[in-house]
């Protein structure tokens, strides 16, 4: 990043509830106190009508764009999309991004201290759902004094949160942009999540989730990430990025298992890098929340009549095989039947599920124009 990034952000924390009056979760358990890590960009207008809530994906965090300080070399995960003059223009909108409940990037999760024991929760942490995450975000918005969102925007598990916002608090959302997402996981998506969870739980260092005093279950977590990462790419992008290229420049096989192919080394690197920043138990909880999520229209998931007042922009990507386009089309069909104003585009992209995170002029133009249209129609 050589030159200094123009956008400075700060991670903040909001805590609510205590042991007795904490959040009641979908599983029936009570959780408190609850801390939510969040970052904001731009300024809230006096009319309080320019707030955008950005919802991050499975292993993301509140650091959506900008840098923390001069030494910070990596800007936020959606820096190409969010910032001054960018499609989600922080000169115009007040952008909020919070870390999800159950995560390990500042919000309360299984690695947080359980006030009842003084030790990390581990598996004593209650199961959280996508709806629980959204309810916690609602508390944050109340705290920030935001009566209604101009739009909720998110991809993947973030897109599920967008849909959950629409289902639970339709009157608080003017518009919604669910990207590369689904109303519920397919058996295939659950299967990949289960393999990832089993990889973690099979690591002897996992110790039933109680590993915070000792060494982390790094091998299991790295393996889980490698599996996940494959589902985020596509056949085409992997062929283009790696093909069958070897690490060894001479083009000879090693005839052992140290790793010959570039794709092997790439996945190992991704796994290793992930272990440094993410908690294994959090991955278990969040993947489970994704698997439980179900707003399928046939189960009445989108039946709140107030949903018809929301403007939708649904986007899928051609090479996304984790949440394929047919799932977005089912969502669009259900929204049309409910009288929603809905736009839909299947963007041509080779990069698989990850495409929504990568710089993409078409995606940027669509989001910019859609947001622009929300304000001009007022």
């Amino acid at each position, binding site marked *: 990043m050589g030159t200094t990034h123009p956008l400075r952000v700060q991670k903040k924390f909001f805590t609510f509830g205590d042991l007795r009056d904490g959040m009641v979760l979908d599983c029936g358990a009570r959780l408190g106190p609850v801390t939510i890590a969040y970052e904001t960009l731009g300024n809230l207008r006096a009319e309080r009508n320019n707030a955008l809530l950005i919802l991050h994906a499975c292993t993301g965090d509140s650091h959506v764009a900008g840098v923390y300080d001069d030494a910070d070399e990596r800007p936020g995960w959606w820096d190409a999309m969010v910032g001054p003059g960018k499609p989600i223009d922080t000169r115009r909108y007040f952008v909020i991004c919070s870390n999800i409940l159950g995560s390990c990037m500042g919000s309360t999760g299984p690695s947080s201290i359980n006030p009842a024991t003084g030790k990390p929760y581990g598996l004593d942490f209650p199961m959280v759902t996508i709806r629980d995450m959204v309810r916690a975000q609602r508390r944050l918005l109340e705290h920030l004094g935001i009566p209604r969102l101009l739009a909720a925007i998110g991809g993947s598990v973030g897109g599920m949160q967008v849909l959950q916002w629409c289902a639970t608090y339709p009157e608080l959302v003017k518009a919604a942009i669910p990207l590369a997402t689904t109303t519920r996981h397919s058996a295939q998506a659950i299967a990949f999540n289960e393999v990832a969870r089993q990889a973690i739980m099979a690591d002897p260092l996992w110790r039933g989730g109680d590993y915070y005093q000792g060494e982390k279950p790094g091998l299991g977590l790295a393996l889980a990430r490698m599996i996940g990462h494959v589902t985020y790419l596509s056949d085409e992008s992997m062929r283009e990025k790696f093909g069958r290229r070897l690490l060894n420049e001479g083009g000879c096989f090693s005839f052992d298992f140290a790793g010959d192919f570039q794709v092997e080394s790439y996945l190992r690197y991704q796994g290793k890098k992930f272990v440094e920043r993410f908690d294994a138990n959090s991955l278990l909880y969040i993947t489970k929340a994704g698997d439980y999520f179900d707003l399928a229209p046939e189960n009445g998931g989108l039946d709140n009549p107030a949903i018809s007042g929301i403007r939708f922009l649904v986007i899928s990507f051609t090479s996304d095989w984790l949440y394929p386009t047919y799932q977005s089309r089912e969502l*669009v069909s259900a929204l049309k039947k409910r009288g929603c104003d*809905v*736009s839909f*585009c*299947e963007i041509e992209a080779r990069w698989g599920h990850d495409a929504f995170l990568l710089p993409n002029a*078409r995606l940027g*133009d669509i989001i910019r*124009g*859609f947001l622009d249209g929300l304000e001009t129609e007022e």
Partner: protein
Amino acid sequence: METTAQQYGYATRRDTGSPEVSKDAAGTSRYQLMRFDLRVIASWIRPGCRVLDLGCGNGDLLDHLRKSKAVHGTGIELDEKKAAACIARGLSVLQGDINTEVRDYPTDSFDYVILSQTLQQVRDPETLLTHLLTVGRRVIVSFPNFSHWRNRLQLLFLGRAPVSRQLPYEWYDTPNIRVITLTDFKRFLHRIHVTIVRQAAINTHHHDEEGNIIRWGAGWRATYGILLIEKRGSDDRGAGSKEPAAAALSQKGN
């Protein structure tokens, strides 16, 4: 032009002149670049109503209707690039196939459904039109008139399947699987119990961006036909209760 017609943005009562070209409030230059048939269609649409535009392209018609008539519009467009361009203009547009996308809308979701220059590519026009007349109170259809004199002469004297500006394809590469004439289409509407509320036959030139409305000999002279239709026996609630009489332009010279 009559004042009331201009006020409502209609073409004149008897459709004798151009639609309100000079009266366009917003984006005049863009409006003048809009296809002539779309300008006629726009002039038929009442302000503030709900419109579904099938095969909306880059969204010129929807954008014009939104700006000049406060129309609440939705478009359906198959092409990713065009659909994306529409959404980037702030229009509500769905990327998809019209035959499947129109199915999900509740009855009477729209005051008008527009099918412009697409009918000739539809595999099952009866099913589609019947469905459009369910999701919309009225449907506006425009299509290239195959019985234009140039087409007739090509077939008569050259013995060749007609190729024209409106139908610029050879038999082996044409997407147009239906050969439609004004007469045929009206017979078809009669057969499927659909009423013509209003119609215009137009002659276009200069890449179809300019043209005039034809008053006689439409079957020979029209490059396009445009018809506003509704289900026979529709009660006249809302949509076009003040439409000029359908008979104003009956085609007798076919």
